[in-house]
């Protein structure tokens, strides 16, 4: 095993022993967990040539040998699954999916298995830096065993590096295994292009969840960079209350345009939410809640719930509404498990549940949720019509400092 940085700049000799140039980069194919080197970039004068791996006889720290004469070197474009180790990975920031943070690649570890040379790990230690600037003796004196700090390549995702025009066709599942909140936190440290690249790589619903967790100004800058069709699709996938908050921060013409492009139902929900002041119950609530008629049985309620489940914010509370959507009562998933299947919902529901008006303020909302230990609080108008619910996670956001303080700014505390 050896380090990539030690290979850079070494002389490359051709089959006749003549110097063909210096090793400038290695091309690796991202198909397997440990990508294999598929080509070598040889620099001669101002020109760069691509030597396919089959043309490489040997590759050592002292230099490398080709099987072909120098004159037969040519160039080619990068394939979709290929990246450059020096140009796109070394010294760049990539995602450590296990540590859930961004790391800067100080060096790359390669290992040989038979004829194949693979990337196995990245080194993020300070020892790597000292080694590369030629001060490895210093690091040797500073600590008895200057160990590299290695992160297994299987645990990183290099796609956040400025890949330029390289688009990967083989999706890596790693990023989507991270919790959306972690993805959002990582995204805060990336540049705008990297952020867009990360979201592109995620599936729609995961991307929407991640965007929901981002700080509003990042959300706004993200939407600013996106084309209208992608932006409206993202907004459709987000829960309506978060989409409404995002739209409220955009220039009105663009917001109107995006709403027009969203799915009709989502657009209606969002527009309704936008009519309420931001800090009122109407502005905080989501319109996606589970509801059943009072005459439904427990069994029927479960069936209805199954159908509504993909769309609703929470299935733990189910609201009972009449034909004109007045809030009659509420019961929980626990009730459904406990009650006899044939029993009507109106018999075991909690009638006249705790609720707040559309114009209720933040203090009233959080006090109600805290006092009654609720997971969600229904929001009704003066006629008792149920308009939406406020879930406990949104209520917590009201109590804690706003999101942008949760993420400590870099210079200031």
């Amino acid at each position, binding site marked *: 095993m050896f380090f990539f940085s030690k290979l850079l700049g070494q002389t490359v000799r051709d089959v006749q022993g003549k110097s063909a140039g210096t090793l400038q980069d290695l091309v690796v194919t991202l198909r397997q967990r440990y990508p294999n080197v598929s080509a070598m970039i040889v620099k001669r004068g101002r020109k760069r040539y691509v030597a396919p791996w089959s043309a490489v006889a040997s590759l050592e720290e002292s230099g490398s040998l080709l099987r072909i004469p120098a004159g037969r070197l040519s160039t080619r474009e990068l394939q979709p699954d290929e990246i450059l180790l020096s140009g796109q990975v070394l010294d760049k920031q990539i995602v450590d999916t296990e540590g859930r943070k961004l790391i800067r690649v100080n060096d790359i570890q390669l290992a040989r298995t038979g004829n194949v040379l693979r990337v196995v790990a990245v080194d993020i230690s300070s020892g790597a830096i000292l080694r590369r600037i030629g001060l490895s003796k210093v690091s040797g004196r500073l600590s008895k065993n200057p160990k590299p700090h290695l992160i297994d390549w299987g645990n990183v995702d290099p796609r956040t590096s400025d890949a330029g025009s390289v688009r990967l066709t083989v999706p890596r599942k790693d990023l989507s295994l991270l919790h959306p909140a972690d993805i959002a936190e990582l995204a805060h440290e990336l*540049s705008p292009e990297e952020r867009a690249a990360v979201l592109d790589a995620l599936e729609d619903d995961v991307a929407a969840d991640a965007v929901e967790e981002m700080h509003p*100004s990042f959300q706004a800058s993200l939407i600013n960079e996106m084309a209208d069709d992608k932006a409206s699709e993202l907004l459709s996938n987000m829960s309506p209350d978060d989409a409404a908050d995002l739209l409220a921060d955009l220039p009105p013409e663009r917001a109107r345009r995006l709403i027009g492009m969203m799915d009709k139902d989502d657009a209606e929900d969002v527009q309704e939410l936008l009519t309420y002041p931001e800090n009122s119950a109407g502005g905080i609530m989501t319109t996606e809640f589970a509801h059943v008629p009072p005459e439904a049985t427990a069994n029927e309620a479960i069936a209805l719930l199954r159908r509504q489940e993909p769309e609703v914010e929470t299935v733990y509370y189910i609201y009972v509404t009449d034909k004109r959507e007045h809030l009659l009562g509420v019961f929980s998933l626990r009730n459904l498990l406990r009650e006899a299947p044939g029993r009507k919902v109106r018999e075991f529901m909690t009638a006249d549940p705790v609720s707040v008006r559309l114009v209720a303020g933040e203090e009233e909302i959080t006090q109600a949720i805290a006092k009654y230990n609720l997971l969600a609080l229904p929001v009704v108008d003066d006629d008792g019509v149920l308009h939406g619910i406020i879930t406990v996670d949104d209520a917590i956001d009201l109590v804690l400092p706003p999101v942008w303080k949760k993420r400590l700014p870099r210079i200031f505390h």
Partner: protein
Amino acid sequence: MPAAADKPGRRSLTHIGRSRLLIFFAVMGPGLITAASDNDAGGITTWSVVGARYGYGLLWVLLLITPILAVTQEMGARMGAVTGKGLAALIRERFSLRLTAFAMVALLLANLGTTVSEFTGIAAAFSLFGVPSFIALPPIAVGVWLLVTRGSYRRVERVFLALTALYATYVIAGVLARPDWGAAARHTVTPSFHSTSTWIITVVAAIGTTITPWGQFFIQATVVDKAVSIRDYAYTKAEVFAGAVFTDAIDFFIVIACAATLFAHGIAIDTAQDAARALRPLAGGFAYLLFGAGLLNVSVLAAGILPLATAYAICEAFGFEAGLDQSFGEAPIFNGLLTFFIFAPAAVAMIPHLPLVKVILFVQDVNGILLPVILIYVLKIINDRSIMGEHVNGPVYNWVAWTFSVVLIVLTVILVATSVPLPFRL
């Protein structure tokens, strides 16, 4: 579900006006913060010396470097808005590791020196009241360290920044000193040169205290912090320009005030007391209090910001774990650097019988010497299309920035060549 309204209602209407204003306030800050921090102990002292030594004679320098300051700050802000990364990260990604290390060493030296000058400023402020540095500095250093590492720094920072308004006193002092406005105006637009090494030292110090390496990193980091996107950038750009003009306007009045009071009577500035005298027309006996309070205020603020910014830059460049919310074990290099960058300069400033004013000037010279190094990195990055896309420098910017860098390099070469040993010629 209730039927939706046909068009967005109340909220959007009130929000149209709010949106523009909100954008402005949300992104406001980088330019003004950097501008306010620019008038630190080094700035106040240097421009006071300029006024005391040469009267209005160097005002043309101030006029020249104001647009250059605006240009360099704008470049930093632009890089931050386009890439979303700090300058140290950009250097690391664009240049070899050796060149990155070189830049970081330059920044480190400049910043350590500047932090020394901040603590020297604190010592000078206390000397106005007869408190020696070895009594005043240790608790202040510990206090700054606690403040920075324990948090609430932001709140304190706001208070400090607000108090920098105290320097408006120089504006008033300048007017009350009844300066020769005609002469001031003439010297602002007419260059005059002296061939003494003291003159070069003063000029380089004046440049070095206004356009600093740390300011270059700082504006970019603040812009990144506020997540200013390139679309909202117009506001930031305007604010950065305004900040440059504002900070140099204060310097203008500092020069005038010192020229009218000190230069007119042939008083050189060797101590803080001399500089405080410039405020006499305004504050009479209270001159000391005002000057001391203001000097203490800006010095403590900068003594907190600089170590923090330096530690962040170095960790950013080399990929070390950094963050104030992390303990010593989690981010050992960051916290270690931070601690060293606060206490080492404080210790230096406590050296007995330190010629405080001379030290401050020396440090500004170091800033001026190292500035072209950083500027060259910046110019290479900001002209790189693969990083900046379409937001690379226009030809005018490049011309201004490159010419300035070359002139500054020439000046510093002359400076170093003619002053051996440097400190004693100050």
